[in-house]
């Protein structure tokens, strides 16, 4: 297709071995670095969430009172004021209703 129609061509590989290794090494390193960076970003994406979860578990382990029904303040509320858990007064005071507040955002 291309033969016999030209009399000259360029030297097939006008690069020394040292230049080939240097340039090739730089190219491979420049291609590898962003891959390592993106991999680091992908794996460290949940670092904040994981740290927060760990902190919550640690606080929970340290806490003296770990369930609401063992809380003396809650027990005192029911004894002095609220009556019994899930009673009418407590439900009226402590429970809330779902309100869709997303409509006003868009």
């Amino acid at each position: 297709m291309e033969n016999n129609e030209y009399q000259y061509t360029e030297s097939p590989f006008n690069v020394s071995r040292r230049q080939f290794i240097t340039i090739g090494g730089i190219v491979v390193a420049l291609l590898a670095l962003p891959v390592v960076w993106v991999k680091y970003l992908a794996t460290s994406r949940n670092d904040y969430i994981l740290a927060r979860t760990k902190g919550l578990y640690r606080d929970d382990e340290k806490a003296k009172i770990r369930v609401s029904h063992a809380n003396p303040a809650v027990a005192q509320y029911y004894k002095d004021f609220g009556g019994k858990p899930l009673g009418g007064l407590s439900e009226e005071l402590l429970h809330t209703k779902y309100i869709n507040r997303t409509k006003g955002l868009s």
Partner: protein
Amino acid sequence: MHNETMILKHPLRVRIFHYLLIISFLPLALTGLALYFKPFAEDNMNLIMQIHIVTGGILSLDAAAFFLIGFERVILFIKRMFTISINDVKWFSVLGGYPQKFLFKKKVPVPPMGKYNSGQKLFGMCVLIGGAILIGTGWILWAFPHNLPRAAVAFMGSLHTFFGLLLTLFLPVHLFLGVYMFDDFKAMILSGKIPYHDAQSTSPLWVEREVMPLK
């Protein structure tokens, strides 16, 4: 037919790489501009995005294939692009003599160049670095936008936009000067060959140092 002495400047695989570059980058540039300025309705913008993604896939496959098959040519190209001498400073000081030629029809002395002149070298550097960044960020923005932190994805989006606009701005200059140097244009688009005497005048250092007779 004339019996002019010819040099094979662009081998077939380089031309195939360039053909695929043309059919992928031209639509990528146009759809990229449309995606940036958003002049159309939503349906059309979605279609434009699909075209952008498909042609981006073609461009990345083309680049990856050439990188793997013609790795030694990639190395040679990088060497040529990043080999800078005082001649490049002199070339840029007269802008290759093009403005004088176009505006005043005056010919000024231009330092001897290798296979690529200094303007082409600058363009080549931008294509090499910008193209790699565009391909890398393009794939991440399309395929893995939710696997990375939002700030990192936004940064990659900005990089993609910047280099996309930069290469798109280079495109008309490249097309104009490509067609202006018509023998080189024909060599890249058609035969791969350039007349020896033309190469001697446009790329004397290349002819002197790298061109050799066919055995």
